[in-house]
């Protein structure tokens, strides 16, 4: 069972303005990038399940020169709202690490 953390050398998340969060998935070499960067388990449905994201507002940008993919989605609650738990979204990546890429 391959998980995202098994095929990436670095995964990070950060706010991209108050309304969006962005995830950078740096794969461990070109083969892993090729095999997994557009895996269905990294699609909008996963971001809906893990973060409540609107699937229509999930963006997927592969960057082959860096063996990475950037995935951005609109936050369900803008930065700093009543239910804020991670102002800079810097811990949001952790929930992605165990996503299974079968």
């Amino acid at each position: 069972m391959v998980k995202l953390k098994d095929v990436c050398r670095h995964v990070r998340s950060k706010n991209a303005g108050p309304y969006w969060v962005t995830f950078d998935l740096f794969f461990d070499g070109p083969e892993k990038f090729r095999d997994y960067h557009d895996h269905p388990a990294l699609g909008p449905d996963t971001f809906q399940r893990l973060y409540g994201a609107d699937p229509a507002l999930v963006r997927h940008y592969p960057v082959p020169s860096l063996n990475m993919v950037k995935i951005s989605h609109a936050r369900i609650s803008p930065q700093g709202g009543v239910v804020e738990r991670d102002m800079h979204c810097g811990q949001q990546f952790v929930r992605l690490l165990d996503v299974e890429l079968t």
Partner: protein
Amino acid sequence: MMDGPIKILVPTGSLGAGAREDEVRYGIARGAHAIATDAGSTDSGAAYLALGISKNNRGSVKRDLTILMRAAADAGIPLIVGTSGQAGGDRNVDWTRDIAVEVAKELGLRPKIALLYCEQEKETLKRYNGAGKVRPLPPLGALDDATIDACDHIVAVMGPEPYIAALASGADIILGGRTTDTAVLASFALLKGASVGASWHAAKIAECGGQCTVSPAASAGVLISIGADGFEVEPLSIENRCSPESVSAHMLYENSNPFLLTEPGGVLDVTDAVYTQLDARRVAVAGSVWKHQSYTMKLEGAGSRRFQTIMLIGIQDPHVLGDVDAFHDRMLAALYDRVHKTIGPAAGDFHISLRMYGWNAVSGDRPPPGTPAPREIGVLFVATADSQEMASQIAKACNPYFFHFPVLMDEELPSYGFAFSPADIDRGPVYEFLLNHVVELEDPMELVRTVWIDMAQGEVA
């Protein structure tokens, strides 16, 4: 264009974060034509715009300004600061202005200072909105006047044009209000006729200072050299280096799209950019493209509509830790019930959340079955209500239940670990960004006001 590339010394990712004198000396010795840095961002939330306050303390900003103003004056080059005072509202600019004037007096300098203000009157924005000049960016919808009225402060994010105009008018120091990070750093090179695409791309790469280097902790700043066809970047610390990967990866940072960056008046497109190692420490970049678009400024507005009171307890009791989720759910239900019974409808549309630090506070998700019990947890109670007084009353009503809530109803009441007395802390308003819109403009200066302080012309009040 000047002979050779335009060199911009970017001393730090944000004014007050810690410019280093040796790095600034190195950049000047390498022939810097200007020093440029931003001084803020929206990253830390809406409070700084809503309140007009800085995130950095006054001493940190004064320290950096002292280093940079002295270096710029000695070298006879301009110092350009954008998004002054964290949020770039008028009050944030004035706070920075007062520090700069104080530093100038202490150093015996008499600079010509341009202050660029971009805070907006609500009536002005309503007029633009009524004329159909304001459009939303996803995920927000069309702007209404009520949302404008709910903002405490609104800024229009500046491009490079006000900076270019101030430089052309002989500014020694520019203290700008809210500006895109890139525009602050690109302005001098654009004025001098460097490649437009390279100027914007270099500015994006350098926006966080040493973040684009191989060892970000080792360098506060970088030097960007922008020519007719591309740019070069090098760390200001001679022990550090840039690599094609460290530089290109920074284009990804805090940017929802890795190839396109929308700015006032155009879009930077780096899809075809090529990053090359030039020598041990420097990277060259070519192929950045600037695409003109109609001129827009992004609007940022901050306000508060609700208030919070918080309490914190620590729990080590293994009976609680054996099933944190069940404890959370039963306590939360009991707290809501307690407020309904003791305050009733007067509590209004209140909200309570319990954040179980040490268990799942950051996500709020349920950990998978079989997750080992933590050794201890901190439980943060957050009550939100329409007034500070009501949030405070809700916390006080909940206090005994929060403090003594048992795992089993027939056991002796436990007492959890409060850290403070009084236990409830009025946190104040919940500050939020309320705008994600752009305003279309005929003229980049339309919403900007420039004020001059010429310290050569005598005493400044």
